[in-house]
């Protein structure tokens, strides 16, 4: 398998050079961390992080300095609401500014790439909420706080409810900027399992929020346990591969369709292997009012048993072999059609090998040829339905 040679190709599509140096003007990690405790932490000792942290006296809020105004100004040149509908996000229109960096994600992390790219599209006025999970665990370690925009942690089950509260609070005070997207980033467990009730509630209320599920197909932050989005046959630490069972025995929940069944204004599937498609969907979602949901496949080398440089390739291959699909759902209000409308944003004319996709990952190592055939048959059934119902 070919390795990804060019970072620019990953992020921006082919034909663009990646900058060798960090983008000019990108603030350094330490420069951004003006949290009261940051310098103390640098000193290596246990220091009172509250000293000077503001009037609250404990201050859950840590202010990010290092000239945020400048960051706002520079990134502000592509306000997503201005840009939406005019051009797809690309290397030419994306800002150099990094809004999520300096975090502790594993090498090759797909989830952090999804957050990074989405925030480039949404811009510095996005307000983020993240539940317990990989992205909050790697991005919110006081005093090393990695969001250059407003962001907060939520209880595990409560991503959507906190998003609702943020949006309602800003609106009630008349303080929501025109280009502000209230956006959540939750993992597959935090979305399809414990957070599903709150997500359903927010969609029911049609709160003006964007919910992005970065799906790495297991509870990775706790050490690779099965979620309801873990695919059949995947070995996790709670679905071991042994004599009696070869990994996960259940099928991946079709959460995109569960969400669409609410009649949500906009839902989409995506993959970090098709980043321009993902970013275009983020941009489209940001341009719409009401609840939006994007489900982005984000491979996890640590949990999937692949090389740290294979993340993007696997994220392409899962689409190319037909085990994932790039689609949209537009609800009645957006599509103008009763019941809404599904569509594909990538129409495969043929599939690459499912077996090749599975066999290059450690988590599927125990699968027999018969079990691989079951996976292939499942794919074919799914596509039969997709082509029948969504065409």
């Amino acid at each position, binding site marked *: 398998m070919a390795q990804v040679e060019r970072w620019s190709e990953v992020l921006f599509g082919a034909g663009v050079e990646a900058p060798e140096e960090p983008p000019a003007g990108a603030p350094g990690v330490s420069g951004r961390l003006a949290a009261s405790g940051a310098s103390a932490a640098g000193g290596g000792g246990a220091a009172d992080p*509250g000293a000077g942290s*503001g009037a609250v006296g404990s201050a*859950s809020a840590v202010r990010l300095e290092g000239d945020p105004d400048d960051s706002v100004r520079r990134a502000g040149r592509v306000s997503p609401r201005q840009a939406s509908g005019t051009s797809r996000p690309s290397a030419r229109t994306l800002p150099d500014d990094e809004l999520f960096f300096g975090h502790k994600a594993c090498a090759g992390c797909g989830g952090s790439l999804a957050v990074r790219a989405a925030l480039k599209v949404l811009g510095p006025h996005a307000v983020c909420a993240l539940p317990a999970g990989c992205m909050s665990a790697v991005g919110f370690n006081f005093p090393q706080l990695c969001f250059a925009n407003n962001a*907060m942690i*939520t209880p595990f089950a*409560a991503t959507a409810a906190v998003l609702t509260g*943020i949006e309602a*609070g800003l609106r009630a005070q008349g303080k929501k900027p025109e280009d502000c997207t209230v956006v959540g980033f939750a993992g597959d467990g935090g979305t399809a399992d414990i957070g599903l009730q709150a997500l359903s509630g927010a969609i029911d209320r049609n709160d003006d929020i964007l919910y992005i599920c970065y799906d790495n197909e297991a509870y990775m932050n706790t050490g690779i346990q099965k979620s309801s989005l873990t695919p059949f046959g995947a070995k996790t630490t709670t679905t071991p591969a042994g004599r009696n069972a070869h990994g996960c025995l259940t099928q991946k929940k079709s959460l995109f369709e569960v969400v669409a069944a609410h009649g949500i204004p906009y839902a989409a599937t995506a993959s970090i292997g098709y980043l321009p498609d993902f970013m275009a969907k983020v941009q489209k979602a940001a341009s719409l009012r009401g609840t939006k949901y994007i489900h982005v496949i984000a491979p996890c080398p640590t949990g999937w048993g692949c090389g740290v440089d294979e993340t993007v390739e696997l994220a392409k291959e899962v689409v190319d072999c037909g085990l994932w699909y790039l689609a949209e759902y537009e609800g009645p209000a957006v599509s103008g059609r009763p019941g809404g409308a599904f569509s594909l944003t990538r129409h495969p004319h043929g599939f690459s090998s499912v077996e090749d996709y599975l066999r290059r990952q450690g988590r599927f190592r125990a699968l027999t040829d018969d079990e691989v055939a079951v996976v292939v048959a499942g794919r074919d059934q799914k596509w039969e339905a997709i082509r029948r119902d969504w065409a």
Partner: protein
Amino acid sequence: MKRFLSGDEALAEGVRLARPQVIAAYPITPQTVVVERLSEMVESGQLAAEYVHVESEHSALSCAMGASATGARTFTATSSQGLLYMAEVLTYAAGGRFPIVMMNANRSTALPWNIYGDQRDSLALLDHGWIQAYAESNQEALDLALMAYAVAEDPRVSTPFMVNLDGFALTHTYENVDIPEPAQADAFLPPYQTTNRFDFEHPVNMGYSAGPEFNRYFKYWEHRALAGAAAVIAEVEERFAQVMGRRYPGLIDAYRMDDADVAMVTLGSVSGLVRQVIDQLRAVGLRVGLVRIRYVRPFPAGDLARALSSVRAAGVLEKDVSFGAEGTVFTNVNSALQQAGTGVPTMNFIGGLGGDDITEQQVEDAFFDLMALAELAAESPRAASAVDRVRFLGIDEDGVGACGADGPAEGGE
């Protein structure tokens, strides 16, 4: 303006006057009337708030927290299992220092399922970092709704506030209540101002992980701010008295304690009954008194020790038990007395569970138990120490129901 209101309605009037900007609502008996009235106020335009129909209590408090993080004044209300369901979020809100005000209708916790009042729900969550106040009357419920915001939002406190009303005894019982004018309420309670919020000019990250070297400081400040709320409560009550003309007595409320030989410590609406029994016993020459705890957090250890330092015995009457131990309020009161070195013998009276009536006779008997304990302790501390100090009201060891779900054991032992 005086109106004849239930506790739920009075509380809702107080919330209206406080002008919350976001209300997260989920119904549960006996809190429901609060969210019903608030929805009507929003519908009619009396109250300009975002009213969010959340799908659970967990989401109710989470939504309130998200709104508070934007600097909005927020309100939610719950009861019993609902409070327990949102328990996880209580610690988020407290640790994040979000000054959310929540009404809790005190209600029994399952199983057996029961909708009536006791205080096991909120007392089980004493350690979650919230200010906890307990109203005795509907007037106090309304006034607490206003004072709660003033205390919680004070930058020295910045801690969420739980206003507790006894289920049914207050929530569904009607009293004459004086409702302040909006101008008075506005004069007392200015809009919420904070730095603990999102800021588009200077973005912030709120709520995060903190390892051991920092975590202990965050927890220490949380404790310090909650303990320090006592001084702020005193200031707020003084200001309330100046604006509204009604004065509240701080963390505890003492009744006929000046020369009391024995005292009963209570929480919430049962205090009214205890006052009545005290008056009757005083009429026949018995020197008995009451200490009603208004705030269980911050815990008024010093106030209690001072109030009880000269009594010969003190009882704690509570609608709560920490199974396998004793009443939670009893534990707290004993700690205060022990630390103050008072040596006052104490006894715990547990009653009112699952909405059970606490009767005049039971309270009178409890006072006699205390007087007996005081005499015994004076004669023989050793003998007094052998007395069972934890008593359940209304339990007949041989009666129906005494043997649990299987009924009386055959053959007996």
